């Protein structure tokens, strides 16, 4: 496989310099410290520290990922076998904001919010292949919004001017997504699938994604004609990447699926259902509790 050939490449071509740290032999050739658990473990063995200093993540993002973890793994940390997805890595990136136009509220056009975001995807390694990517919106449950709203998400992908003179600068992508959000008290997150937009970018090894996002939500006239539209308290969307890590250390779910006799499902890029994690997680929790009682 690609990963094992890469490792062989490292072993064959690594120069052993006196004084070099042993774990540096595992470094990918481009020198960026990328690979998951192994290099921090080696670092602990070499200098006994618990890893490099880290930036603290956004608390909402951390809460979302903890909820995802509970949905995907048991209390002992073992991946739940009833999950049929093929990705073994989920990364959540919070954006650096270029500029943030405040929400404008209009009784006819609804709430409009546009924001310019920059995502740094440096942590995505060469052996992590993108299967699905979504923009994750968190809603403040205290909004006074009707239970249903029609939202249009308009994205403009801005590619950095290419450094090489060979490729001519391209006009920014402009892709429009349309999706309807139902705002219920128990939904705190909504995912907007942007796989088609980001797939070529991540596959071409670009690690900096600059995107302008405009979200317009209009109340659903049929349900609450008299409801006042108020400003949606929209947090800036985070970016969720569902990846398949092909390295030897990563768990390969298709392997266990195959040996359980069920045909493995080849992911088609658009086919993975995007559904609110809250609902899915809640369902998972409910059924297991039921089983327990029986």
């Amino acid at each position, binding site marked *: 496989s690609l990963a094992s050939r890469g490792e062989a490449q490292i072993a064959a071509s690594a120069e052993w310099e006196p004084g070099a740290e042993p774990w540096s032999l595992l470094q990918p050739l481009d020198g960026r410290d990328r690979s998951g*658990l192994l290099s921090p473990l080696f670092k602990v063995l070499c200098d006994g520290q618990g890893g490099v200093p880290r*930036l603290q993540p956004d608390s909402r993002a951390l809460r979302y990922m903890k909820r995802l*973890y509970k949905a*995907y793994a048991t209390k002992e940390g*073992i991946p739940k076998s009833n999950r049929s997805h093929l990705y073994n890595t989920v990364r*959540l990136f919070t954006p650096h904001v270029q500029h943030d136009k405040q929400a404008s509220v209009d009784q006819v056009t609804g709430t409009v919010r546009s924001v310019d975001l920059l995502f740094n995807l440096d942590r995505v390694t060469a052996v992590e292949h993108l299967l699905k990517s979504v923009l994750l919106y968190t809603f403040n449950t205290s909004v006074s919004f009707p239970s249903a709203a029609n939202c249009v998400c308009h994205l403009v992908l801005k590619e950095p001017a290419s450094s090489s003179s060979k490729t001519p600068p391209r006009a920014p992508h402009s892709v429009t997504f349309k999706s309807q959000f139902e705002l219920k008290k128990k939904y705190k997150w909504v995912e907007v699938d942007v796989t088609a937009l980001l797939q070529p970018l991540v596959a071409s090894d670009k690690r900096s994604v600059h995107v302008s996002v405009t979200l317009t939500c209009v109340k659903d006239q049929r349900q609450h004609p008299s409801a006042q539209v108020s400003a949606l308290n929209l947090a800036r969307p985070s970016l969720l990447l569902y990846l398949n*890590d092909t390295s030897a250390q990563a768990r390969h779910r298709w392997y266990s699926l195959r040996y359980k006799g069920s045909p493995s499902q080849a992911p088609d890029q658009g086919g993975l259902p995007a559904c609110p994690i809250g609902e899915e997680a809640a369902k998972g929790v409910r059924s297991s509790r039921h089983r327990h009682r029986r």
Partner: protein
Amino acid sequence: GQETVSSGLKKPLVPASLNLSEYFKQFLFPQNECELHDFRLSFSQLKWDNWIVAPHRYSPRYCKGDCPRAVGHRYGSPVHTMVQNIIYEKQLDSSVPRPSCVPAKYSPLSVLTIEPDGSIAYKEYEDMIATRCTCR
């Protein structure tokens, strides 16, 4: 192998005061045989909890114990293990050790970590929890 077995018996395993049933139990239930041992660690012990968010506890487990001489289907050991045991007992080569008690099967582990740039990663790693031991 007779002489080996008897030399084993010659060792004073039982103090005179122990009763016979205790003595025979030794043979029915071999002591200190290769088996899986539990071991739990929490990442806060290692001061890793600033970057490993979940799981809170991790029990990698480990294998420890003596490998029986005639290793057979109970450990799923290959025939090579028995050959190595014979080389060891016949002292054909002093550098050849007795077969070791090692993990034979693992289960994966899901880990939620905070990356140095503040992003958050959920990853599933293979072979992180020992679930079965073998001799080889």
